[in-house]
Structures are given as C-alpha cells and as structure tokens.
C-alpha cells in the first residue's frame, strides 16, 4: 500500500516489487493506493494477507519495521471521518459472511515525511528497505510459501 509519488509513502510498493521479482508459491502481489472499503476488493477471497506499508508515528526511528497481526485490529476505537480502517473492514467482512483473510499481518516501515511529492525513496528508507523485504520473506515462509529458488513461473493463487 502507498502512494508512489509521495516519496517514502511508496516503500511498501518497493518491497512488494522486490518480492514479485522472486515469485513465491501461492502468493499474489498487488499494489494499491486505495484505502478503506476499496481494500475489501483486494482482500476478499484470500486466506491470508500480508500488508506492506509506510507509517509515520513519530514514535520511533525512521527505518524501523513495525509489525501487527489481525488481533491488533480487533477493536474499532473511533469513527473515522473519511474512510473505514482495517478494524472496520474485518468486522464488516465477518458480519456479511465474506471470505476474508483469517490471518493478517501488517509490516510497516516508519518514515519521516510522506507528504512531499517525489518519486524516489529517501536514502534512509532505501537503506532500510532490505529489512522490510527480509521480514516479509520471513512471514511468507512462516505461512508455508516456498522459497523462490525453484519457483520461476509463479504459483497457484490461494484465492478460492
């Protein structure tokens, strides 16, 4: 997830492209600049979802990779004026009986300023990118997706 003309906000895209270049068995790589309800379209039908994103908490060093699981999104803490967040999407999907990822992981890199228009990452984010990719690979391996060495043609989708 991200915006590819807002500098470090695109760090998730960069990580996703790296993963796409070494296709994992049973994994679809999707890039989207959307938020809220639109994410339902991307998440519906999958058993698991790994979301790669940028985040600006201001509470840790830029380049830090933060991680959350589905349980962290269990509670809706407040209404949002402009979109539905993951907690709402998860509850919504459950309420309407949608086939939605039971297992969900968010990996987000802390970035300094994702509000300036530029097409490249800052040196700091570029330097930290391998750590995000590495963590993403680890999650995929944990979920049983084969390492890419023998997988040169892409694999079957997990979508039902």
């Amino acid at each position, binding site marked *: 997830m991200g*915006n590819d003309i*807002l500098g470090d*906000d695109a760090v998730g895209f960069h990580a996703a492209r790296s993963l796409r270049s070494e296709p994992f068995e049973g994994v679809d790589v999707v890039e989207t600049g959307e938020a809220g*309800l639109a994410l339902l379209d991307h998440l519906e039908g999958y058993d698991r979802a790994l979301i790669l994103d940028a985040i*600006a908490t201001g509470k840790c060093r830029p380049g830090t990779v933060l991680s959350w699981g589905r349980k962290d999104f269990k509670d809706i803490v407040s209404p949002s004026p*402009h979109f539905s967040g993951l907690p709402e999407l998860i509850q919504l999907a459950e309420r*309407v009986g949608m086939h939605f990822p039971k297992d969900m992981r968010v990996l987000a890199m802390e970035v300094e300023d994702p509000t300036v228009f530029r097409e490249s990452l800052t040196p700091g984010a570029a330097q930290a990118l391998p750590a995000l990719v590495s963590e993403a690979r680890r999650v995929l391996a944990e979920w049983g997706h084969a390492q890419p060495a023998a997988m040169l043609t892409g694999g079957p989708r997990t979508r039902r």
Partner: protein
Amino acid sequence: MKQRHVAIDPITRLEGHGKIDIFLNDKGDVDHAYLQIPELRGFEVFSLGRPSEDMPQITSRICGVCPTAHHMAATKALDDLYQVECHPVGRKIRELVYNTFMLEDHALHVYILGGPDFIVGPDAPKELRNVIGVIGKVGLDVGKKVISMRRRLRGIINYAGGKVIHPVLGLPGGVAKGISPDQIAEFKQIAAEGLEFAKFTLQVFKDIVLKNEAYVKLITSDAFTHKTYYMGLVDKDNKVNFYDGDVRVVTPEGKEYAKFPIRDYLQHINEHVEPWTYIKFPFLKNVGWKGFTEGGRSGVYAVAPMARLNAADGMATPEAQKAYEEYFKVLGGKPVHHTLANHYARVIEMIQAAETIVALVNDPQITSKDFRTLPTKTPKIGVGVVEAPRGTLIHHYETDERGLMRKTNLIVATIGNSARIAMSVDKAAKGLIKGGNVSDGLLNQVEMAFRAYDPCFGCATHTLPGEMPLIVTLRDLKGGVIKEIRR
C-alpha cells in the same frame, strides 16, 4: 482573557492531515476554533517539465479517494490545452465513467463516512459510529447491498477506465478505449440496480433522518448554518452537471451573481493566505476577502452538494428533480444554508448520477468504435473543470510548444470550501461547547461540522493500529499541557 486550548487531533490515515484546535476562554467557552490542514507539498514543482499527457495519471495519484475526479479534470484541461473538442462518443463514455464514480463515491459517504453520524446518531457510542453501527441500524441485507452495489459500479469504471485507482481513460479529444456491445447488457443491469439503490437511499434518509425531529433540528440549527455565496457547474439550462458546463455563483439570497466559462476563473476567484495553515482560502475576487465572515459582503463561497443545488435552477433528470423540489420544501426554501444539508443534497445527487448512467448505457452511440478526435494544434494553456463529489475542481496547465509542463495550478474541491469549513468548525464549537464541557458527543458534533463537506485532506499519514485516533489537549496560554484526553 485567559485561554485554554483543546485540540481534536485524529492521526488516522487520511484525516491525519487535519486537526481542529479549540481555544477556550477562562469561562470555558470557545474563544476561537479552527481547522488546520498541513497540506501535501511540492506538487507544482513535481509536475514541471513533465509531458502534459502524463497529468491525468499523475494527478489521479494525488488522492486515493477521488482519483477519477482528478483524472477527468486533467483530461478536460488537456482538451483545452490542445484546443480540441472532445469527440461526442468519447464525451458520453467519459460522462458514463464520471457519473458512475459520483454515485459510488456519494454512496460511500452516505453509508460509511458521514452517514453514521445520522444513521447511528451523533451521540451514539463512538465504537458504533461506523459502518458496523450502520449495519446494526439498517440491517445486514442493506450492508450487503451497499458492498455489492459499490463493487459493481466500480466494475464499470474499471472496464472503461482501465484501473479504478489510477484510470487511464482520458486522452485529449476523447478516450483511450470504447465500450464493447457485448458489455452493454451487463452495464444496463448495473445501471438499473444503481438507480433503484439511489432511490432506496433517499427513502432510508427520509425514514431515519427526516422523520427524526431531533436530527432535523440539528440540521437546521444555527450552529450549522452560514449564509454564503454558492458555486457549482450548470448546463445550458442552469441544471446541475457534474462533468461539464459553466461555473455559476449565486448570492446568499439565491440570485445569480456570476456565470462564467472555466477559462475565466482567475477573473472571479482569488486565494487568501493565513499564517496558521498551509491551506489557501479561495474567495470571490470581485466581492473581496472580508475575513471569515458570512453574508453578501464577504467573498466566502461554498462548493459541494448543497452549494451545487443552490447554484442551479434544478436537477438535470426527472427523479432527481422531484427530490430536489422536496428538499427545498422540507428545508424551508432556497437557498439552503445548513451545512448538514450536504448529506441530504448528496443523496439527491446520487439519483441524478444514477439516472444519467441509465440514459448513457441505453444510448446506442455509447458502443460506437469512433470515440476520439485527434488533436492537431500546438498546446499552450489549458483549464479543465469538473464537479468532484467534494466540489468544483479546477486544473490549470501551461506548457511549452512541445507540451511540456511549465505551470500547474490546482484548485481542489476541499480548498473551495476551506473558508466555510473554518467558519463551520468555529461556529459549531462556539454553539456546542459551553462552560468547559467538551464531552465526546459534543466533539463529534464539531467534527460533523467539517465531515458534512466530505473533505479530502490528502493521503499519506498512517495510524498506529489500536491507538486512539482522537487526542484532546487542554493547554494554557503559553501552550503548556494542562490535561490530555485520548479516546
């Protein structure tokens, strides 16, 4: 006078760029309240030197919420830049995509974003003021219908535009792709369902909002009322048009003040700058900036659904026209000045968008294989305009003779409302917060004052999941924190 400072500071993904600051005096009443928006920076510089043909794709990336509006305004600016009239079939395809986007986006706001305040209730527990609370109130089947309808409408945009989020539809003089006759039966089905859905939504609004005396009282209350100028695009009959037309401005009394082609916008619109925010405040140049004040002597104007309905003489389609007439009857005549009426006006616009979609998919020309007029002239200056869901959106480009960008000026829809939003937040806070009582429900009602405009503040900042997205900070005059409340 001694002041305390209350900040409503959501830090979630989109609204992270907006923050409401409320200053209380020593009696605990509101001295002043305003909305701060740290805007995204550097787009004009970013666009310089790029081929103008890239602008519909680049500008659609400015915002993940309304990419289609930017794409279409940019495409129309390219028509003007290359001095080519859009091919009539290309125009119909553009209008089909655009009205589909308007219907989908408005539905999203009615049910998911602004609607929960009314459908669930402004004083309902915060954990219920969301789409889940809406489903609890209107029923699971309606929830399923909203999700399904939205997806099917996006299917039309996806087919014609390539990608929903970054459409590649628009080219100067027409569109990149036609509509196959094989596709039209499905589109007709979606269009018919879309119209039923829009009419159903009006009924939901009537049943839940208009039949609730307290809600109507809130909508028409002084705290949510401003008498300003109103702006919107109108067709040759002065009816609401989302895709094209002249810009029409009416006075706070509802009389036509100006009507002009978008090329002349600089003769009518100027922008005021305040030191406390990045956001600019457009105003009517020939009336003048008189501060954040209302009335005919102040150049402050409004855009978006309520303003569009005020600025026009009617809706362009029959069912929407009926709803339009009822709207002014219910709200006490024209023009309507109640900010929260934007929700009602939005539903009426859903009906016009849906009726327009039905007309377009039933137009035999829509599947023509000829849909573009090739431009042949040398580019120089181009200005394009559409009515985005959030108001009048203007793209102004200037290029060299090769079509490389030399200047970009965008007046985005939310900015058109910025002065009125600032006034709404201030007035709502003053009307609702007394004696230092800043309860959660009251704060939500202050937020409602700007949420009604469906504002879009850009999209880059992300929230820390599980954290409270609302922080209220009480400060003394020197900025020291007296108390911090998180929810």
